[in-house]
């Protein structure tokens, strides 16, 4: 039930408008991190407050909301965020990806491609792709301005020399529209190609770091790779989901009581849909 002691969508209208303005600027400069006056929320900083502020500023009574964490609608954090948004709005929520107009996510992009009537909002812990090579914000800001991305390329090269592989796991950096290097948030490399020329709007919110950035529809998003060493996703060859049998999804590795290893779709809503389809 909505708590009438608080404004619709918690924040005061002025704050929500300010966040929408930052989001508009982000859309206008794809991949560029727009700073904003991040507000404190009743949910912990580092727990998705950037994403939540975007959701709160964009959501209206007509919207249908889906929240996922690690691909799952049922995860404690996803449930908790949905519960909070439910307290200060009374929008409908769903677990079905195709039904949602606004989807907030942590660490995954749904398996089903999103459409132009949907917005995917990412929760971002560290928005700065250059932070792994340079600790100082003052310096990384200049590096972006000068499009000086050499240290990241060097890191990629060093990893090839040392391990014969690019060893970046998630948060794999990409170039947006040929101009800004961007951190796609801690999604697996498996999801990076879904950012490229997508039909939907992708918005990224980092509450603690006070940054918003965006990938507008049909934007070119290229994961970093050398001409002779192509970009490589996580490999699930020969493995499939134990529930729905999918072989083309991102899988979670698990162990049962006997210590036997098995795999299951990380996108729980997709997994359910496949099972529903199969059972007719």
């Amino acid at each position, binding site marked *: 039930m909505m708590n009438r002691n608080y404004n619709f969508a918690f924040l005061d209208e002025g704050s929500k408008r300010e966040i929408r303005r930052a989001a508009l600027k982000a859309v206008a400069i794809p991949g560029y991190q727009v*700073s904003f006056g991040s507000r*404190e929320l009743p949910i912990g900083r580092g727990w998705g407050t950037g994403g939540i502020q975007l959701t709160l500023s964009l959501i209206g009574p007509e919207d249908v909301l889906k929240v996922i964490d690690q691909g799952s609608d049922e995860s404690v954090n*996803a449930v908790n965020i949905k519960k909070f948004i439910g307290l200060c709005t009374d929008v409908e929520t769903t677990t079905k990806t195709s039904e949602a107009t606004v989807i907030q996510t942590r660490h995954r992009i749904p398996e089903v491609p999103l459409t132009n009537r949907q917005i995917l909002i990412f929760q971002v812990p560290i928005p700065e792709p250059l932070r792994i090579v340079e600790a100082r*914000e003052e310096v990384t800001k200049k590096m972006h301005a000068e499009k000086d991305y050499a240290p990241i390329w060097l890191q990629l090269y060093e990893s090839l020399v040392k391990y014969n*592989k690019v*060893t970046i796991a998630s948060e794999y950096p990409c170039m947006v529209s040929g101009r800004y290097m961007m951190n796609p948030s801690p999604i*697996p*490399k498996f999801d990076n190609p879904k950012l490229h020329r997508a039909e939907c709007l992708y918005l990224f919110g980092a509450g603690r770091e006070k940054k918003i950035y965006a990938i507008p529809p049909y934007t070119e998003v290229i994961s970093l790779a050398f001409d002779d060493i192509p970009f490589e996703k996580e490999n699930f060859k020969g493995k499939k989901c134990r529930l729905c049998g999918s072989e083309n999804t991102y899988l979670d590795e*698990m162990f049962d009581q006997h210590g036997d290893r098995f795999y299951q779709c*990380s996108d729980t809503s997709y997994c359910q849909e496949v099972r529903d389809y199969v059972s007719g």
Partner: protein
Amino acid sequence: MTYVAVSGGKEAIEASIKLLDFYKGGTEKDVEIEAIENKLSLLVDRVMGEAGLYSKTYAALAIKQCEGSMEEAVFLLRAYRSTLTRNYYTNVVNTSEMRIVRRISAAFKDIIGGQILGASYDYTHRLINFDLDKEKAAELRREVLDMLGAQEPEEISLCPRVSDELRKEGLIEQYAQDDKPPHDVTMSMLEFPADRSARLQTLARADTGFISGLAYSALRGFGQEHPTVGELRCGYVELCVPYPLDEQEEIYIGEVLLTEVECFNKADDKEQLKLAVGYGAVFGRNETKAISMAVIDRELDHGGPYPTQNEEFVLMHGDSLEMNGFISHLKLPHYVTFQSKLDAVRKTRA
């Protein structure tokens, strides 16, 4: 079967909150908000300071709501603060006009206006008082109030700052009056190099433990020499907002209790030396924090190789909400990213 990992989140959260309420209840005895507000006033002060919201009652409520957890209480007040519309900005407060309840100088024995010891734990022996649970609060309070009532009130006189005298002598660097509107760290992101106003705001709201540790490191050797507390004053200042119909007039809206500190360090002045001032001001009675803030202000001005002299290091890592939020997020599931990490590790070993 247990293979649907962390599902049933809703039921689990509800049960967790019920258990938490039971822990929070703790006993059949209740603790009144008024008691927290007045008997745990130093905790209240610290919570208000780190939250950046001056409301003793709400701070006391917040403390009660979270079993006295510092970080949770600050969190509650900050989140509430986000829902409030900012209607007015107060006029600049001149702390020379402070109604002082305590004032000391470690630099000079005699200062104009005098040293006022006030209430301080500094000269108490930290021996647990085993009779405290037999204390009769009402009687004690009445006794002191009766004693005070029998005394002749003294005229309140304003105390000039200790640094004013040194400034007249030209020993302290003179700065031009800077009346540009302060950078508001609650409304826009901190940028580097940061304005001094942004620095002081950030330090004033910073976690007391964080900045005390930093200041300690500067005193111990990871910084400049040992500074001198030129003046520490604690007292009430009046807050006024401009009267909307006449800019020259102002309306009194209340008072806040502050602790303010000026520290002195030796500093280069071409061929000679001068005194450089570090400044600290915090809500309520929180002297260690005010002194630490002054130490760090000075270290940041000075610059150098140590952590306390690095602006981004100091200003980006001391916010209670940010540090505790990000550290606690490590408890959230990281199945997807860990899977990716495993994949990267396995690939190099294939």
